[in-house]
């Protein structure tokens, strides 16, 4: 190749190289989703990504607080979709970080279960800012082979049979909710405890602490503690129940009649998302509430979507695993809310742990 031809070829290559990203830009709108790793598996998302003009970048969070801190610190401008807890949406709206959901662009939202349609959480002045996405319960999980009977919340406060064999999540909100349920404080008052009620709660939490083996911070750690027999009963998330049963350990899951803590995560769109990116984001939101994603989440999670889109596609066993075979189970749920005096709750929780 002589020098002139080499020059021509090089110029042509540069021109083609410059055109290629432009053509990709026309084909795909790239959006960034900040979420939990278990919600954004490639397998869950591939049906959407293979049929739409949207490409997805994922960034994973370790805690809800971390997500809020990132957005609050100025990260909102680069993120198109986030996954805050239903009780935490208030943090984002009070910080003016979100935009309302355009339901015209999310037809699958019509299939939301009634509980989620009616909830005042995630809404401001009638506008929805965090649309319920998936939900579950945090029950009591226990070693059925090492306990005589199904426990309820009282196991953490009464008797001495399992002293030193119990574990509680290190989380002020749920720890105080459980104490309040044990004390019989009604749900309407639970998140607005007065001084006398907080004093009562503190008293029983001190008793609880004396019975605990440990406070757990990671569900993997709790699973290990169950497996080694260090802990026989804990306020838990659901995964250790299924993981350890699969390994041949006789595990039990109790849903106390005094109330079960229900959780729900939402999907929310930061305020700065506009134009094509906003359309693409709502396209993804609609997919996340639809049947294909719902089935994959139910089987792979197992977690329940907030809509009924995939319900009829699941076997009775799959429905039971994610508590949607009988939706009246939700009647006993106490959904987490953000208490107005939460700083005092955290201080109280730390006082108990430091005692």
């Amino acid at each position, binding site marked *: 190749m002589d020098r002139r031809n080499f020059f021509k070829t090089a110029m042509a290559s540069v021109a083609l190289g410059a055109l290629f990203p432009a053509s990709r830009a026309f084909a795909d709108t790239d959006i960034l989703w900040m979420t939990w790793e278990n919600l954004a598996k490639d397998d869950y998302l591939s049906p959407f990504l293979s049929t739409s003009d949207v490409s997805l970048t994922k960034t994973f969070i370790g805690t809800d607080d971390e997500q*809020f801190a990132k957005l609050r610190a100025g990260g909102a401008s680069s993120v198109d979709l986030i996954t805050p807890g239903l009780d935490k949406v208030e943090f984002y709206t009070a910080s003016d970080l979100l935009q309302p959901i355009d339901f015209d662009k999310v037809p699958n939202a019509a299939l939301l279960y009634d509980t989620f349609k009616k909830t005042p959480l995630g809404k401001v002045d009638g506008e929805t800012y965090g649309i319920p996405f998936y939900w579950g319960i945090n029950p009591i999980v226990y070693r059925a082979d090492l306990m005589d009977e199904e426990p309820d919340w009282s196991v953490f406060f009464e008797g001495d049979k399992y002293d030193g064999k119990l574990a509680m999540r290190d989380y002020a909100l749920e720890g105080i909710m459980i104490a309040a349920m044990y004390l019989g404080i009604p749900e309407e008052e639970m998140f607005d405890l007065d001084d006398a009620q907080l004093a009562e709660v503190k008293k029983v939490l001190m008793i609880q602490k004396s019975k605990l083996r440990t*406070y757990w911070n990671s569900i993997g750690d709790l699973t290990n503690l169950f497996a080694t027999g260090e802990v026989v009963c804990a306020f838990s998330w659901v995964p250790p129940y299924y993981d350890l049963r699969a390994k041949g350990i006789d595990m039990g899951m109790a849903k106390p009649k005094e109330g079960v803590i229900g959780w729900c995560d939402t999907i929310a769109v930061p305020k700065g998302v506009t134009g094509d990116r906003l359309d693409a984001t709502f396209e993804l939101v609609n997919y996340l509430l639809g049947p294909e994603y719902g089935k994959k989440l139910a089987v792979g999670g197992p977690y329940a979507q907030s809509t009924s889109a995939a319900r009829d596609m699941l076997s009775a066993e799959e429905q039971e695993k994610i508590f949607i075979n009988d939706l009246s189970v939700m009647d006993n749920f106490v959904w987490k809310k953000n208490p107005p005096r939460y700083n005092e709750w*955290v201080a109280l929780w730390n006082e108990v742990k430091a005692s």
Partner: protein
Amino acid sequence: MSQPVDKIGNWLALPVVAALTALCLAPLLILFVYSFFQVDFVTILHEPTFANYAKVAGSETYRGLIARAFGSALLVVGITAIIGYPVAWFIAKRVVAAKSTFLTLLLVPLYSGDLVRIFAWRVLLGAEGAVNRSLMWLGVTDTPFGGLLFSPLATHIALTYNYLPFMVIGLWLAFESLDDAWTEAAADLGAPAVDRFRRVTLPLTLPGLIAGGLMVFVMVAGDYLTPQLLGGASGITIISAVNDLFGTAFDWPLGSAIAWTMLAILMLCFGVGALAIRRSSFISEGT
């Protein structure tokens, strides 16, 4: 000729100084400023006040946790000093050919990462762990001893294990610099072994002891993972309380005030340590 070279050196150092200022000092200064603010739900109120420092001083919980952090740090410094002193002496004065092997062996656990070491201790100290099985096999006890794991004992064993190398390295350097002629001269003058240690070896190795002690002190005071994962229901630390304040409670100002209180106490400890090193006979003899 040297002046222009010095100037070039100063200019070359400028990016490093700027980076250190931006990356280390600036965040601390921001925390310091925040520690005088207040919070209302998720809004930081920029109205300067000493209320957060008053809250730290007035709270039995925070005072207790700070005291517990420094108490634990002092305890671990003491234990690592007692164990580390003969180990450092042995490596510096008795090992000749395999000195680097001993030092490498000392540092090997540090390559494994905090979590791995913590879980290794769980395997050892757990109800079905090696220690309990050995005790049962020896007939010392019929049932596993539950107090081994998830207790302050487990926390302090692991903290001592984790930070011992830092103490040994400080002491080893001091022993390497120690001229044996000093102790030999003391022996020739009839000083008994105890006096030789008390009046010659200890003062001359004091800078290493202080330097190693300060490193261990700072790291133990700031360690929250070990107490959290091995300390059981009593595993709360002041650092995990700060974590709660920055995370779930969104009380950044109070968290900043506690962080700066800790920092001020640590700086005071460093100041005292630096003063002690400066006044030690090791330095005065050397100059």
